[in-house]
């Protein structure tokens, strides 16, 4: 982070005071710390995961962004990189992993499949986008996104973190956002527990 970033607290500084004193806001320091140490959950689903590994190896080197520490445990990670096709059989585990991650947590939908089902959207075992279950922060299109495209997505996430303010972030307040997402069940098809009423109604209607 350049020196300049610290001295721009987001409001106007009189011209004569610039470069004489350092004004920084707690937000900037706080966000700088968080954006420079986003630890992703070590968690690959499909083809995109290989590009994710490639992004963390020598040529693209995620370590330059402070993101090389991929944690296998959700308890220690800040970012869930959903890299690949989300299937109905897998989505209960993904939701459970997300619930286990501590706040602040972010989700990146990497690739077409995680964003909206991708080429496999029509398949019977495929969830049409992880955003049906989890709040997604950044969508990275591509099939698969090249490591550079992924890095761009991560930079976009850092920009998003930069814009957050201590006063408004959800993890310091009680609110609907910190509610756990109910883990879907595997019945005759995937049952999203938030939608049982709707499923009941439509299934009954189909008989008529």
């Amino acid at each position, binding site marked *: 982070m350049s020196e300049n970033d610290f001295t721009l607290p987001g409001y106007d500084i009189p011209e004569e005071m610039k470069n004489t004193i350092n004004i920084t806001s707690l937000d900037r320091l706080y966000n700088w710390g968080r954006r420079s140490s986003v630890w992703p959950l*070590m*968690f*690959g*689903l*499909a*083809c995109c*995961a*290989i*590009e994710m*590994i*490639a992004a963390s*190896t*020598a*040529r693209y080197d995620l370590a330059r962004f402070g993101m090389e520490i991929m944690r*296998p445990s959700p308890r220690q990670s800040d970012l869930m990189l959903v890299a*690949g*096709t989300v*299937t*109905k*059989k*897998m989505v209960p*585990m993904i939701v459970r*992993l997300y619930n286990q991650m501590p706040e602040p947590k972010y989700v990146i939908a990497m690739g077409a499949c995680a964003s909206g*089902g991708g*080429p*496999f*959207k*029509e*398949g*019977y*075992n*495929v*969830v*049409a986008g992880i955003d*049906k279950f989890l709040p997604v922060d950044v969508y990275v299109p591509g*099939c*698969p996104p*090249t490591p550079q495209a992924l890095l761009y997505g991560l930079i976009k996430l850092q920009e998003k973190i930069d814009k957050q303010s201590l006063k408004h972030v959800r993890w310091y307040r009680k609110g609907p956002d910190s509610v756990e997402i109910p883990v879907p*069940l*595997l*019945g*005759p*098809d*995937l*049952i*999203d*527990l938030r939608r*049982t009423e*709707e*499923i*009941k109604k*439509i*299934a*009954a*209607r*189909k*008989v008529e």
Partner: protein
Amino acid sequence: MATTVSTKSVDLSTIFPDAVIADERKGYTGWLVEKDNLIEIATYVREELDYDLLSSVTGVDYLPEEKMEVVYQVYKTTGGPGLFFKVQIPREDPMEIPSVINIWPGADLQEREIWDLYGIKFPGHPDLRRILTWEGFEGHPMRKDWQEPFYEEETKPFKSRWPKGEHIHAEEINPYHDNLKFPPKFNPENWTPTDPEEALYTSLKKFTTKNEDGLEAEQIIVNMGPQHPSTHGVFRAVVVLDGEKVVSLKPVMGYLHRNHEKIGERNTYLHNMPYTDRLDYFNSMANNWAYALAVEKLMGIEVTERSEYIRVIMSELTRIQNHLVWVGIFLNDLGAVVTPLLYAFEERELILDIFEEVSGARMMCNYYRFGGVVRDMPVRAFEKLKQLVYDRLPGKIEEFERLLSENEILLSRVKGIGYLSAKDAIATSMTGPMLRASGVPYDIRRAEPYGIYDRFDFDVVTRPECDLYARYHVRIEEMHQSLRILEQAVSTIPEGPILPKKPVYQVRVPAGEAYGRIESPKGELGFYVISNGKPNPWRYHVRAPSFINITALEKMCVGEKIADFVAILGAIDIVLGELDR
């Protein structure tokens, strides 16, 4: 290495005149076998005719003829053409065909897959559970009359896309506004969940043992995966442990089941090409070839000379790249975190650069077309290829050997671990480096040469040790052999056309069946395609090496330590895109 290959085809119908007739449908080969005589005939084929390798078992749904068919493709590990035999049964539940698992144990997972996707039961199979979907899933999805929730039309291209193609999300058409489908009157509140894990856990052996002091010790069940850093993706293994020792193990899969085959039957022949990229996503160049081979067999077209060379070059490059990554990840599994992986990915990136320059994409190359490849190799890419093949890669592979081959820590982790005898390896239908590491010199490039492999000089690498050490060495040595092939191909590649004629997007494929198989870096990759003369394949089946090589996982792991399970699994070289399809 010259093997004497018998090309004489066997006439089953003269041996079993009452139970076998020749398959005389147009474009088909092989034999139709009576269901009741299957076991007898299969035993004969295995014992007397020496067809020891069950390559693939496939279900086919002939809805118009009201028939279900199961196709068995068997080969000899000494080489030569295969033998196809089929069992037909009327298409009404309950459908039952006796299991061949006692003759070829490699049928294990494949029969489970047919039960899952087609609903054909195999009496005699000891553990017939759902495999790709879950227990409680409604219906058998590969049946032709089963429609997925986002069903739009029987075949592509869909009419809604043009000329009145207002963009509509598939979700808006589906009543549940999602990729969902429930039986009528389904009520999630009254629904009692059938525990999908119950059948799995009862299939595992459980013991309680008493030790000398009279204390009872119970074995514990450990779930590894589907989210686990060592399972190479979303693979799951349920392990029963006695202390640290593996007593019993079951692989659980389907967490990346992306319905390749169902989508593949809606697609046109050309549409399937980029989908094959996403099977084994390390080796799209190899996958393309196997699929192109099957369709070219059906179409009866020749591949242009230059394209044949380019195909060999690309598929050998992808083999080197795959084995490099395998070494890196295998060492990662053993605990040498990232150093070998970083070195391996450096070379891989350089190879991927060539792929990108040639085909347009790093991983999903989509480079092969029926009759050739999509475009010629640019001069710059060819120059870089030469530099890699002649200068860089030989030295780098030797560097890997210096780094690893004599390292005592590595040796003590791999020697004698994960033993799989040649007999067991053949019985469980292992192919590729896994089979060769058990001392069986079976390589499709030699056993049944495809493309122009008969023109090149190379050795089939085998090792006698049958353990992890052998599997490591086979792969290292195979990279050297690939370089040998590459050197020959690069120096003799002729000029000439790339495609036999102007490419068209709607290819005409005559009715019939074809099985195209290649030696992919992971084993035998086969595509079984049935055409009925329409623009879309009637059946599109992938014989995935990762999927079938996992059959022997339990055999290799029982008796070993849990830490070695990670290495044994890693040595199989599975890729989930291919394992679950």
